[in-house]
């Protein structure tokens, strides 16, 4: 009989396919168990998406949470889904209090319509400057930059627009040190050649630092500093 002469090739093919599927499944389990994967594809053909394990974005989270710029993600309704510590610091409001709160609640009345339009109309990298309200009632000028917009969620980077304060404090500190050195120079060690040379060297380094800060600040008025 012909049927018995045929070694059931279809069954063999099916078995080979099943073996391959089982081997792959075993390999997936092994990779999961040994921590070699950090994402999975879920869903059917119409709703396929990628789920990341928490460890996959932990470092990004740390980066965002520690960066010196505010970051906030808002829902399509304008409610805060996520914010980093820097943004909470800008508002002087506990971070936990920000979650689910409407972003516009922290924007001055005069800027709310602009914020709303910005969130609706903006494309990536577009920016808007407005004032946010702090807990003590003062306002803080900021620039909002739309970093990403997807699935109805907008992520904004928030930059503090106040003039930078620390360099001027540093300049003041350098001036103070220079004055002290000058007094030393005019005092007891002024007659000691070696001490004078060391003082001159230190003075030169301080002047160099001061010039560097002037250049960073690009302050014309200070350009004539000795």
């Amino acid at each position: 009989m012909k049927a018995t002469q045929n070694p059931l090739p279809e069954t063999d093919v099916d078995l080979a396919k099943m073996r391959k599927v089982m081997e792959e499944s075993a390999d997936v389990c092994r990779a999961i168990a040994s921590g070699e994967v950090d994402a999975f594809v879920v869903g059917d053909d119409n709703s396929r998406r990628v789920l990341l394990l928490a460890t996959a974005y932990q470092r990004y989270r740390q980066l965002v949470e520690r960066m010196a710029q505010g970051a906030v993600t808002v829902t399509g309704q304008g409610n805060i889904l996520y914010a980093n510590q820097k943004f909470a610091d800008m508002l002087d409001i506990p971070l936990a209090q920000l979650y689910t709160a409407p972003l516009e609640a922290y924007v001055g009345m005069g800027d709310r319509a602009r914020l709303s339009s910005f969130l609706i109309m903006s494309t990536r990298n577009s920016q808007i400057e407005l004032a946010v309200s702090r807990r003590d009632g003062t306002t803080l000028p900021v620039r909002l930059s739309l970093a990403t917009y997807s699935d109805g969620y907008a992520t904004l980077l928030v930059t503090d627009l106040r003039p930078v304060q620390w360099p001027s404090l540093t300049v003041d500190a350098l001036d103070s040190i220079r004055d002290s050195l000058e007094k030393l120079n005019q005092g007891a060690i002024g007659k000691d050649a070696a001490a004078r040379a060391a003082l001159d060297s230190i003075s030169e380094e301080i002047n160099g630092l001061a010039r560097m800060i002037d250049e960073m600040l690009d302050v014309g008025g200070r350009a004539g500093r000795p």
Partner: protein
Amino acid sequence: MTPTERWDLRLYTAGQSPKSLAALSNLKRICDEHLAGRYSIEVIDLMKNPRLAKDDEIVAIPTLVRKLPAPLRKVIGDLSNEERALVGLQLRPHK
């Protein structure tokens, strides 16, 4: 495997997840060492287009697929275990 055989590899990644980056780095190292000058790597970022997972029935990321030489082979994981990766790609026989 013939010395001139062309290798087409496809690495499925999830954006810049640590395991995806590790897999790409490990894969390049393995290829430079064992397939120098006769391989190509196509990186498919499933974060950007998850639907592409269907082509090779990908469930875990990262996954490396050897498209050529036939037959198709898959290696799942970040390829940190070089011995396993070499065996999976059939660059080294099973012990």
